[in-house]
């Protein structure tokens, strides 16, 4: 598409990653803004690390809904008549873009809560019950930091990435939980990591943790690190620093509510 088609721009930075969004429709751009990642800041520079372009087609004469098209850099990311689907695709992709382009930070796919001044980090892929466990830990008194990414700095501390908690129902349909519904406090400052839980939900499983070595803990983190393949020295340095100073526990676990209370008591 010709550059002059993009009449509206909104660029922001998040943890040092500079993201550009542009569109031919200012209202549509405003919709994207509602799902910018946590802690974004508007920037005026047009020099960005990642560019999103949203083309909204005008309504057709026949009254049919037109297709909207979203590009991530030069690749088509989503094309749909339902604008909500476009926003959803953007929200998912932009977080990953920030995770890849953040400066001096390492993004690990993990749930994070704070407890007594230290973080509990739960690395894992989707469908391991991370978000449910995070919700229950917050309900049991922990502070909410993230249900998606642990943002680690060079000192090995974790920063908040508190977006609305995304939970799936029994039909695997995502539902967002507002901070009010979640209850509990929201983390505002970076904190050191006290515990790493390598755990997955399994029906009727008992929590019988074994303590992992720092090396095995580093592997658990690396397997969920967005920039694991980047070859940047900071990745290994940060992950090994975190693993060296944290207690790393591995076990399957049962239902999140009972487990959350048990865990917080053990860590008290």
């Amino acid at each position, binding site marked *: 598409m010709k550059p002059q088609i993009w009449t509206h721009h909104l660029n922001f930075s998040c943890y040092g990653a500079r993201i550009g969004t542009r569109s031919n429709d200012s209202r549509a751009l405003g919709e994207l803004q509602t799902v910018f990642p946590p802690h974004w800041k508007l920037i005026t520079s047009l020099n960005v690390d990642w560019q999103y372009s949203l083309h909204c087609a005008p309504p057709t004469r026949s009254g049919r809904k037109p297709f909207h098209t979203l590009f991530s850099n030069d690749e*088509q*990311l*989503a*094309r*749909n008549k339902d604008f909500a*689907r476009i926003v*959803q*695709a953007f*929200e*998912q*992709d932009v*977080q*990953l873009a920030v*995770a*890849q382009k953040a400066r001096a930070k390492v993004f690990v*796919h993990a749930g994070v809560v704070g407890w007594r001044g230290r973080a509990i980090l739960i690395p894992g*892929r*989707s*469908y391991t019950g991370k*978000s449910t466990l995070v919700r229950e830990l917050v309900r049991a008194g922990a502070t909410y930091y993230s249900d*998606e990414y642990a943002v680690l700095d060079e000192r090995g501390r974790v920063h908040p990435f508190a977006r609305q908690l*995304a939970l*799936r129902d029994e*039909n*695997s*349909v*995502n539902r967002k939980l507002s901070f009010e519904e979640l209850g509990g406090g929201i983390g505002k400052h970076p904190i050191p990591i006290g515990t790493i839980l390598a755990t997955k939900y399994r029906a009727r499983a008992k929590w019988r943790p074994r303590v992992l*070595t*720092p*090396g*095995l803990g*580093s*592997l658990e983190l*690396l*397997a*969920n*690190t*967005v*920039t*694991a*393949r980047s*070859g940047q*020295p900071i990745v*290994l*340095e940060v992950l*090994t620093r975190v*693993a*060296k100073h944290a207690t790393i526990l591995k076990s399957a676990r049962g239902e999140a509510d009972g487990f959350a209370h048990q865990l917080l008591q053990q860590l008290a």
Partner: protein
Amino acid sequence: MATSLYPHARREGFIIQPLDGELILHDGEVTHLLNVTAASVWQLCDGHHSLAEISQELALPEETIVYTLQQLARKQLLQKNADAVLFSKPLTRREFLKKGALVAAAIPVVKTIQLPSPQDIPSNGGVCTCPDCTGVPTTCDGMTPCQVGTCIDGCCQVI
């Protein structure tokens, strides 16, 4: 026993990170973790220490050294010239343990993981963003059924 063997570790192309006696070898696509025993052996594989000397220096039986070298060679962490000697009579883990070569807590372990690419780590729980995907938010990560179609290349598509 191939006591005249002078094993040589492959070091080029790795980011090497020691960690409390363990060793992480990171080459961009895979990461190897050597436990304390395996790391100690690997570090002495400099082409100047014979198998017997490594055994003597680490106070470990030669079977332990051979078993470690076999594991390292399988993961391509040694220069290739050692393979023929090491695998002329490979030891299985069971045989190794049976031979009594085990010194307490000295079982050598080399664990390897394939590193994920950014696309392997989906946000929002693997919601399908396939341009042609229709219907309600759909998951398609190989673990949950695709709700509106068929999982193709990680996307839920109606065919």
